[in-house]
C-alpha cells in the first residue's frame, strides 16, 4: 500500500467508494472466517502445474491466495470506518526458455487457470528474447503436502466488530479525559491464506495472521498556536488479538518514566500516557544542536535497523535491480568480499524468517523454501545478504535463504526483507545501568520522521519522546530532535547493547518496494543500544 492508499483508508470522512483496488472487494465480517478447501486448492494447482509442463515450461509455481483484511478506524467519539475486504485469486509463475513468465486470474475455474498458465508460458518465451542469460534457480527439495500457521491464541477475525469498536472508543475517551485535544485510533487486521505448489513437488498451505493497533494523540495550545502529537508505542505483530490483552508482565517502565510494551499492549494506558506526554511536548526544552551520545529504545531502533541495514543488504538492490525506484546499496559485493566493517564488534545483526510473533514469520516463503535464520553482520563484519532462489548462485550459495514474497496473488513474488534484528549484548546490562555512564546524551523512544538516501548512507530520524541525559541521569524532556547519520559511522559508534531481558520487536506493516509497488510487513528486534557522538539537529522553524 502506498501513502495515497494509506490516506484513503485512514482519511477523515472516508466514503466506502474509496477502497483501494489492491484490497479487492468489500465483504461482510462473517466472510472473514471462512477458508477455501485444501483439496480444491491442490486440484487447481495441479491443473496449472500439468498445463505448464505440457507447454514446455521447465519450472512452475502456483500461489492460490485469499487475502483478508479488516480496518476499524475511529477518531474521538466517532467510528469513521469499518471495512472488511477480501481478494482471492491465483498467480502462476513459470520458467520457459530460461526466462520468467507470470500471469494471474481471479477466476478459479480449471479453464481459466489453464488459460492463465498458457499466458505465463507465452510471456516467458517472449521475454527470453530480451534476456542475456538464463535464470539459474537454486534447488529446493519438494516437501509434499504440509501446512503452517501463525501461532496465534485468538483469531482477530473471530472477535466481534462491536468489541473492537468499544475498545477503540474506550481508548479515545480515556485519552480525551487525560487532556488530549484529538485522537485517531485504528485496528488493522490481516489474514493471508496462502497455498503454494510447485513442480518441485511441494503443496504448502499456510495461514498467516498479523495485527496493528496504531494511534495518534494531539494536544493543541490555541493561545500559542502550538500543537504536538505523540503516536502510540505499540508494534505491529505477527500475532492474534491476544496482543491487546495488556498483560502487566509485558509493561516496562523506562528511565524517565515512559512505559513501553513487550509482547502484549495496553492500548488504553498508552493513550493516557500519550495525552500527558503530547501536552508536555508543548513546553519542553528545544534541543541544542550538536554531538550527543544517543540511547535508543527498541521502539525507535527498529526503523533505523530497517532503513540502514535491512534495505542495504537486499541483494537485488546491491545488484542494481531497484536502481530506478528504491535505489541501490552502499554495501556492495566487493565490500562483502573484503569483510567490510559495517559496525563495531558489539553489532551482530541477523535475518530471521522464523521468529515467533514477528511480522515476517512464515513456514515457507513464496517460492516454497523453508524459512531460516542467518547472520548478516557478525561482530561488526558484513557476512551475508538476503537472497531468493534465482540470486543464490551469485553469492555461491547452494540454496535460497527464503526471502521471496508477493503481496497479492496477482503480484509477482520477488526478494523482500526478512525480519532483520540487532542481537542483544552478551553481558548483563539494563537501560538503567546503561544510562549511568552517559555524560551528555539523548534518550529516544518511539519512531518518528525518517528519510534515507538511495544507497542507504545518509539518514535522518526523529522519534516520539526525547529525554536529556546529563551525568548519568535523565534530566528533562526535549523537543525538536532529529539525528543525522552516515550508516557505517553510526553502526561503528555503537558501544553497548543491553541484554536479552530488554529485547523487543518493532516493525513496519507497509514496507514499499518495486515497480509496480508492492508492500510487505517486517519486524525488527533489538535491545536498548548506545551510539556515541551522533549529530543531532534542531528541527524547530518559524513561519513568522
Amino acid at each position: 500500500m502506498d501513502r495515497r492508499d494509506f490516506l484513503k483508508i485512514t482519511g477523515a470522512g472516508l466514503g466506502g467508494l474509496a477502497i483501494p483496488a489492491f484490497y479487492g472487494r468489500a465483504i461482510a465480517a462473517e466472510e472473514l472466517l471462512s477458508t477455501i478447501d485444501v483439496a480444491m486448492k491442490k486440484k487447481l494447482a495441479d491443473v496449472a502445474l500439468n498445463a505448464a509442463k505440457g507447454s514446455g515450461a521447465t519450472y512452475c509455481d502456483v500461489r492460490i491466495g485469499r487475502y483478508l483484511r479488516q480496518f476499524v478506524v475511529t477518531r474521538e467519539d466517532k467510528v469513521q470506518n469499518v471495512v472488511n475486504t477480501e481478494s482471492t485469486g491465483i498467480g502462476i509463475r513459470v520458467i520457459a526458455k530460461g526466462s520468467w513468465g507470470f500471469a494471474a486470474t481471479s477466476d478459479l475455474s480449471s479453464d481459466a487457470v489453464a488459460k492463465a498458465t498458457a499466458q505465463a508460458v507465452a510471456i516467458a518465451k517472449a521475454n527470453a528474447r530480451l534476456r542475456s542469460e538464463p535464470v539459474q534457480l537454486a534447488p529446493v527439495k519438494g516437501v509434499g503436502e504440509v501446512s503452517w500457521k501463525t501461532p496465534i491464541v485468538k483469531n482477530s477475525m473471530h472477535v466481534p466488530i462491536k468489541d473492537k469498536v468499544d475498545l477503540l472508543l474506550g481508548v479515545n475517551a480515556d485519552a480525551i479525559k487525560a487532556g488530549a485535544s484529538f485522537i485517531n485510533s485504528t485496528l488493522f487486521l490481516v489474514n493471508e491464506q496462502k497455498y503454494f505448489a510447485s513442480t518441485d513437488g511441494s503443496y504448502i498451505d499456510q495461514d498467516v495472521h498479523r495485527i496493528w493497533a496504531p494511534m495518534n494523540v494531539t494536544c493543541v495550545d490555541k493561545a500559542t498556536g502550538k500543537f504536538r502529537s505523540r503516536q502510540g508505542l505499540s508494534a505491529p505483530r505477527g500475532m492474534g488479538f491476544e496482543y491487546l490483552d495488556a498483560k502487566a508482565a509485558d509493561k516496562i517502565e523506562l528511565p524517565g518514566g515512559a512505559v513501553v510494551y513487550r509482547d502484549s499492549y495496553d492500548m488504553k494506558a498508552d493513550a493516557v500516557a500519550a495525552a500527558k506526554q503530547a501536552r508536555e511536548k508543548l513546553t519542553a526544552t528545544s534541543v541544542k544542536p550538536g554531538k550527543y551520545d544517543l540511547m535508543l529504545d527498541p521502539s525507535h531502533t527498529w526503523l533505523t535497523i530497517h532503513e540502514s541495514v535491512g534495505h542495504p543488504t537486499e541483494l537485488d538492490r546491491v545488484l542494481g535491480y531497484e536502481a530506478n525506484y528504491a535505489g541501490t546499496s552502499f554495501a556492495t559485493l566487493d565490500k562483502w568480499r573484503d569483510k567490510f566493517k559495517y559496525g563495531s564488534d558489539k553489532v551482530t545483526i541477523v535475518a530471521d524468517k522464523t521468529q515467533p510473533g514477528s511480522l515476517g514469520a512464515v513456514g515457507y516463503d513464496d517460492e516454497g523454501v523453508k524459512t531460516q535464520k542467518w547472520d548478516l553482520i557478525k561482530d561488526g563484519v558484513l557476512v551475508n545478504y538476503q537472497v531468493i532462489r534465482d540470486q543464490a548462485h551469485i553469492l555461491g550459495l547452494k540454496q535460497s535463504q527464503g526471502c521471496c514474497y508477493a503481496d497479492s496473488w496477482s503480484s509477482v513474488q520477488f526478494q523482500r526483507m526478512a525480519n532483520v534484528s540487532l542481537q542483544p549484548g552478551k553481558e548483563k546490562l539494563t537501560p538503567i545501568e546503561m544510562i549511568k555512564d552517559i555524560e551528555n546524551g539523548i534518550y529516544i523512544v518511539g519512531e518518528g520522521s525518517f528519510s534515507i538516501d538511495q544507497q542507504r548512507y545518509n539518514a535522518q530520524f526523529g522519534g516520539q519522546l526525547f529525554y536529556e541525559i546529563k551525568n548519568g541521569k535523565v534530566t528533562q524532556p526535549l523537543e525538536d530532535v532529529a539525528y543525522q547519520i552516515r550508516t557505517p559511522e553510526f553502526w561503528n559508534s555503537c558501544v553497548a547493547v543491553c541484554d536479552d531481558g530488554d529485547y523487543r520487536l518493532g516493525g513496519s506493516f507497509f514496507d514499499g518496494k518495486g515497480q509496480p509497488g508492492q508492500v510487505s510487513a517486517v519486524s525488527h528486534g533489538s535491545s536498548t543500544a548506545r551510539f556515541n557522538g551522533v549529530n543531532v539537529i534542531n528541527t524547530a522553524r518559524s513561519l513568522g
Partner: protein
Amino acid sequence: MTIYSEEQAKAILDKAIKMSKADECTAQLSGSNGGNVRYALNNVSTSGYVSDADLVVEVAFGKRTGTATINAFDDKSIESVVRRAEELAKLAPENPEFMPAIEKQTYKPTSTFVEKTAAITPEYRAQVAADCIEPCRKDKLVAAGFFSDEQDFSAIANSKGNFGYQKASGMNFTCTVRTDDGKGSGWVARNLADVAKFDAKSEIRIAMQKARGSADAKALEPGKYTVIMEPAATAGLISFMMFGFDARQADEGRSFLSKKGGGNKLGEKMFDERVTIYADPWDEHAAVLPWDNDSLAREKTPIITKGKVDYLQYSRYWAQKQGKKAVGQPGNLIMVGGDKSTMDLVKSTRKGVLVTRTWYIRLVDPQTVLLTGLTRDGTFYVENGEIKYPIKNFRFNESPAIMLNNIEEIGRPVRVGDDESPFVMMIPPMKIRDFTFTSLSDAV
C-alpha cells in the same frame, strides 16, 4: 475488455440503484486496462498487463451506511452486491458525521482521454525499453527504468439522479542511468496524457548526459544555498504542503494554516507575491476528471493567489458544520510561471546549486511543514551562469512555506507526476535563495 461505454455503464448503475431498497444508494463502476515494462541492468526484468473492473455500491439507512464491491455485472451479481451492501448498512454503527448522497451535479467534460495513449501495445512498451537500453549499452552506461500506461473509465450515479461518465488515459516514464563504475547517476521522467508527445530515444539522452556529467562529484559544505530546482525537485515539496490545506485540521489548530488564538489563515498572505497556484480540471496540459472522490463537481479553484491563501479544503461534513460551500477537491495543481527554461535560470545565477530531483521526502514537523529529503541523480555547482562541476548530494531540511517566500525567479511550468502525490501537477523550474542543506550524502 473492461472499458464499458457510457450506455453500458449507465445501464449497470441504473439497475443497481433501482434494485436498492435503502434510503439512498450511490454506485460507482470503473474499469482499467494497464500495461507496464520494467528493466534494470540493461535487461527487461518484468512486463505486465492488468485488466480489471469493479462495481461499488454504497447504501444508507438513516445514518448507517454499508458498502460492497463486485467484479461481475450480470443481473444476479448486481442484485447480490446491492443486498450485501444493505445487510452491512443494517449492522453498521450510526455515523454522526453522515452526509446524505449528493444532489444532481453538472459535470462539464474534461480532456482526459487520448486515443493514441489508450492504444499503446506490448510492442510499443518493449520498444521504449529497447530505446533506453541500447544507447546505454553502447556508451557503457546502465539503464533501469519503468514505463506504464493505462486507459480507464469511471461512471458514477446515485438515487438522487446524479450521473457522470468519463474515460481517461495516461502514461508515466522514469529511467535512471548509471555509469558502469557507479560514480555517476542521471534520471529522466515524463508524465503525459498524450503518448504522441513522448520520444524515449530523446528523453534517454537527458539521463545519459546527467549520468556522465555527475560522475566524480566534489563535496560542498552543507549550508544555505541559492538553488535552481528543476520542476521535479519541488513538486514533491509543494504536493506535501497541500496536506496542510485541510480546513478541519486548520480550524482544529493542527496545521501550518492554523491561526494563533483559533481559526485559520484563509485570506492571509503567506508566500511571495509571485506564487500563484490553482486547480483547473479543464487545463489543457493536466486535465483530470470533472468530479472528486465524493462525486462533487470540480471547479477552477484558486489555491494561492499572489501569495495569499485563497482556498482550504472543506469536506462535505466540515463545510456544512462551518456554513461553507463544499466544492470538488482539486485533482491537479497548476503553478503559474514565466517563459524561462531551467537553463535560462542557470544563466542568470552568479553562484548556486542545480538540483535535478529530490527524494524520500518526509514530514519532520507539521507545525511548520518542515520536510527532509535528499537530492539525487544530478546535482551541480553553478557559477557565473554556467554549470561548473557535479557535487555530492545533500540532505535538505526545508519548509515549502519558507521556500515559497524565498523565490528569486520562476520559469516555465511543465507537467510532473510524482509517485507519492495524488495530484497531476504543472510546476515551473524555480530559483530559490537560502535553501537549507543540512548534511552531505555519499550516495550516487
